């Protein structure tokens, strides 16, 4: 049975002027690690707030653990763990004070569920007398996760836990999530970083309040409708301009050290492109067909 179900959820602000969430439906299975992937302003936070019973949707229904988010909000509040996007703990309380406060508020103690948070907590334990405000970004994030887990929730909502955190801490964070998933906790997590999508079992790509694609990352990638080429040369900036000038180019974007190219007719016009580029004085161009990334899919679906 699905742990989290959204059906045609719509949420507007400013008396209907701003449409934050537009007819969104999806379900998260029990014990699944599900990602909401999309840029800021896509509606991710509104979805989290509706699910954690903090906001009422304009229309549609949502259930968490079989409870309705409007009628049974009390039952839901007993069972979910929620880490809001701008959650910053109590800066003036120490690590230990923060944790024991949240444990008590959630009717629990640190000892009771220590097993669940142990892996994470041992990393911050040496600093337990330090005030939360003096922790580094990575440590804060770990402490916040501990606080959200301290009552052993069955469903965990994490709103952009990795935003503004460096690549190393992000990687560690995702490893922690994987271990939590193994303990049977259902996790719904959002992120604006497209490269984190493949770390989820299933994802929903979301843009301007609407889900534009949903499925396993492999599934979404396999549905990429076109052939994708990667192009490299010694002069990347000029190359970008000239690939875009090629009449058959549908899109060309930089992806790190290469440009990703699609053609408007879905056939392989790689050789024609190479010839065209030679006329523009590119002689060291390296082009090959590649598997798209989630970011390629997102860009394609945005149109």
């Amino acid at each position: 049975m699905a742990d989290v179900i959204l059906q045609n959820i719509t949420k507007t602000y400013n008396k209907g002027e701003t449409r934050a969430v537009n007819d969104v439906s999806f379900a998260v299975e029990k014990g699944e690690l599900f990602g909401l992937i999309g840029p800021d302003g896509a509606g991710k936070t509104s979805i989290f707030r509706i699910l954690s019973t903090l906001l009422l949707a304009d229309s549609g229904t949502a259930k968490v653990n079989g409870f309705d988010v409007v009628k049974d909000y009390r039952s839901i509040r007993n069972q979910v763990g929620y880490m809001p996007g701008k959650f910053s703990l109590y800066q003036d309380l120490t690590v230990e004070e923060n944790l024991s406060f949240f444990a008590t508020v959630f009717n629990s103690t640190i000892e009771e569920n220590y097993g669940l948070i142990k892996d994470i907590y041992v990393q911050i334990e040496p600093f337990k007398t330090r005030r939360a405000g003096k922790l580094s970004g990575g440590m804060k994030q770990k402490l916040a996760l501990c606080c959200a887990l301290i009552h052993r929730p069955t469903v965990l909502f994490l709103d952009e836990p990795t935003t503004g955190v460096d690549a190393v801490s992000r990687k560690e964070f995702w490893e922690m999530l994987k271990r939590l998933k193994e303990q049977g906790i259902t996790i719904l997590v959002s992120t604006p970083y497209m490269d984190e999508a493949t770390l989820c079992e299933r994802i929903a790509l979301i843009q301007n309040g609407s889900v534009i694609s949903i499925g396993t990352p492999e599934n979404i990638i396999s549905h990429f409708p076109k052939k994708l080429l990667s192009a490299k040369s010694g002069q990347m900036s000029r190359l970008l301009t000239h690939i875009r000038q090629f009449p058959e180019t549908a899109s060309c974007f930089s992806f790190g050290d290469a440009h990703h190219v699609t053609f408007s007719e879905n056939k392989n016009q790689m050789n024609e492109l190479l010839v065209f580029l030679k006329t523009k004085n590119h002689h060291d161009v390296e082009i090959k067909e590649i598997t798209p990334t989630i970011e390629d899919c997102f860009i394609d679906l945005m149109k």
Partner: protein
Amino acid sequence: METKTVISTENLTKRFGDFTAVNEITFDVKSGEIFGFLGANGAGKTTAMRMLCGLSNPTSGKANIAGFDVYRQTEKIKRNIGYMSQKFSLYEDLTILENIRFYGGIYGMDRKSIKAKSVELVEQLGLKEEATKLVRSLPLGWKQKLAFSVAIFHEPKIVFLDEPTGGVDPVTRRQFWDLIYAAAERGITVFVTTHYMDEAEYCNRISMMVDGYIKALDSPANLKKQFGASNMDEVFYQLARGAKRNL
């Protein structure tokens, strides 16, 4: 091509009590270069950037920004640089044109050139229709692009960008980098921090800060070679993994 040095530091250090936030960093940035300033959280990036912008006095070491000394000529430095961050960008309750004119005015541009240039800028960004709307009503991606254009409106020698593309959608993120390239081609030096490792590839050179030190500094291609990595993500991971400050 002109290869004047616009940022030059020598053993630049900042200490807060017995904590050394930035430890003897030495590097040069050439005019028109796109310089990526990377590092883990707490590595000292923000502190270093503040010193370079003339907002905070170094404890020791030398630094010269756009030809001016960071100890004595901070006012002149501020006139010759632009700054933009993810958090502070524009006044939400002013219109697009009002924002542009306000920043032009701050940097002492005369009224005539502000007027001419602001019309030009609005057209260039494709915001002609929205020019008299409040910035609040713009989508985030547009705000960031506009904020960048405003930061270089007074044609500074250097522009400092602090995580300019955080949370921006993939297409707008790339359009943003198009703007960065265009600025660099006009000779504006771009000094940028980011958490997106693919963006590190777009820089001419990158420095990696770990625990207050610059641990590596080279072009992305050379760094990958040096660390035997296939992408910048791995380079970053190898360097920052050993960081003590970010446990």
